[in-house]
């Protein structure tokens, strides 16, 4: 029985982690769906958001909700700036050029943050009212975890509605189907791409807060690997599909926590490695992900 409870606890921990992955993966998937760009800098935008929160909170003592709002705004600004400077000039140059460019942006941002804030790890504490633990049966959840869960579903529902019902959503679907044809049909593809980057960057900043709250330390390289894992989650669920990204995020989070919790302690250090092994295995069996179709359409 103890074993079963342990299993459940680990699953819940997996859900916590998974909800963070899910939020990042949604943003990743939107950008990838339209531009076919593996945006390596996505995770680093998350780092930018977290550092903004840290500076505003510790240096100026601004209340958390204001800092979160500001960090989202700054992350969106950074995301749009990178799009304008590093990706837009390469729009016609093919996937490879933008991929390289995103890699360079990622290195640039990591080193800029290192230069400004030093490469040392820093402590990051959420205010007491967010880190307070609630005990439900044998499961412990902080207020932050509950907010994160709720956020995932709100984001999923809102974004799905936006994509299904609004004009810009329709334009996004068209662009992810065929960018060139959409352009010919008179869709303002720049507006679509900017929207996708804005949504992705804003979500990245939010998830950065959640990740930092969970790990309690931050460093300039903290965003890179979670960013990649989010891409894995998006691929796992079926890239280009929003519900797929959320599903992939949860599956990845649960799988990672179960692996860390149930394997002998010798293996727990292989958590990160396990995620990528899982990605390779999934690509072997189901290359277009769980909910994805061969064309990579949005569902």
């Amino acid at each position, binding site marked *: 029985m103890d074993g079963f409870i342990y299993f459940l606890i680990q699953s819940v921990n997996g859900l916590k982690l998974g909800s963070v992955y899910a939020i990042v993966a949604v943003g990743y998937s939107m950008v990838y769906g339209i531009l076919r760009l593996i945006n390596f800098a996505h995770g680093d935008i998350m780092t930018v958001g977290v550092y903004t929160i840290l500076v505003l909170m510790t240096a100026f003592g601004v209340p958390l909700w204001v800092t979160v709002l500001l960090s989202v705004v700054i992350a969106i600004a950074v995301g749009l700036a990178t799009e304008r400077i590093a990706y837009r000039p390469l729009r016609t140059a093919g996937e490879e050029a933008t991929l390289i460019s995103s890699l*360079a942006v990622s*290195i640039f941002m990591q080193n800029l943050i*290192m230069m400004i804030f030093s490469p040392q790890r820093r402590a990051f504490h959420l205010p007491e009212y967010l880190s307070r633990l609630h005990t439900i049966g044998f499961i412990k959840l902080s207020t932050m975890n509950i907010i994160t869960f709720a956020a995932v579903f709100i984001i999923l529902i809102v974004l799905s509605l936006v994509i299904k019902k609004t004009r810009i959503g329709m334009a996004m679907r068209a662009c992810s189907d065929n960018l060139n044809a959409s352009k010919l049909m008179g869709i303002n593809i720049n507006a679509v791409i900017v929207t996708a980057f804005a949504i992705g960057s804003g979500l990245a900043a939010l998830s950065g807060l959640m990740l930092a709250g969970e790990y309690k330390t931050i460093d300039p390289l903290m965003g890179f690997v979670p960013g990649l894992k989010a891409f894995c989650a998006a691929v796992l669920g079926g890239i280009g599909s929003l519900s797929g990204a959320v599903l992939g995020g949860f599956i990845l989070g649960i799988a990672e926590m179960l692996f860390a919790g149930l394997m002998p302690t010798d293996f727990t250090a292989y958590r990160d490695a396990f995620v990528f092994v899982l990605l390779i295995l999934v*690509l072997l069996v189901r290359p277009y992900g769980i909910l994805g179709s061969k064309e990579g359409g949005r569902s």
Partner: protein
Amino acid sequence: MRLRDSNLFRFIIFVLIPLIVIIICGFSSGSYYAGLVNLFGINVILVASLNLVNGFSGMFSMGHAAFMAIGAYAAAILTLPANQKLISMPGLPEWLIYMRLPYPVALIIGGILAAFVALLIGFPVLRFKGHYLSVATIGLIVIVRAVLDNEDELTNGARGVTGLPNYASTWTIFGAAVICLFILYRLIRSSYGRGLTAMRDDYVAAQTIGINLTTKKISAFCISAFMAGVAGGLWGHMQSVISGKFFYIDASFKIVETSIIGGMSSLSGAVVGSLLMTFIPELLAPLETGIEVFGIRLPELYGASNLIMAALLIVIIIFRRQGIMGYSEIITESLFSAKTYSSVLKKSEYKKLCDIVAHKIKELSSRVKSKGA
């Protein structure tokens, strides 16, 4: 008439001068600059082999550091004396502990292991379009790092393996570099290589003329990984210390950066890129510890050199996407063609070079004059 049309000029620039530098470094081993030149040689192997995948076949791998690590550890295990292995790697099977192979054989076995891992990762990933390979290869780096850091019994964990014998002399490194360049040069000029570029330029057209994309992709990826493994073996024995942290994502990015700056679709680009990327960071290094500019002391700018390189990369990818060398193969062509070498013996070549130089000087002086007037 341009200078580069003269075979003798090519001989002097691309063969004679490098040879002199290599010979000087070969006899002054242990000096700091000789070490840098050796590093340049290893970078040439790494970047040229990466170009086979990223530039010539249109895939995008970022996993070279992982293959380096595999090659470096394999070469270390095969060349370290048994008593050293008993201390740092007691978990190895007995036959491996007592096995010592000559260095070149160890290098090749390291390369073969790396190629085998490339096959394992390439098979599931390379069947698809798109750049899943780049994420999967970064994943491979994470996986390899996790294994190296945690299998204490086999790899001495995060402490790494120390005291590797100093077998990687300047001669070995540049011998290997020239062999690798030669193999790659012949390869991309063969029907196999033309198939790769056809696949890069238009995969549908390539398929219709009977090129098997998957085989081509996987084989090119494995050849590239083999050379990266060899380069890793050389690197380890040059540094005499290896551990997981030297073969992580940042190391891999540096190789990719070098490849793009030099020109992905050119082996000569690998040489030029390695030259720049080995020596420019040396010039920028003082920035990280703080320097004085015009009497103002700059603070320590940690990460400044990486920052500048990343900015340079963005500028290059926007304004000169094909890299510095573009599609030119001038260096490898001069290195591996008999014409360059026979030009030393021909009187007419000397005359031609003199003519060109005289012409250039005349042109230059007339330009200076016209500006003065």
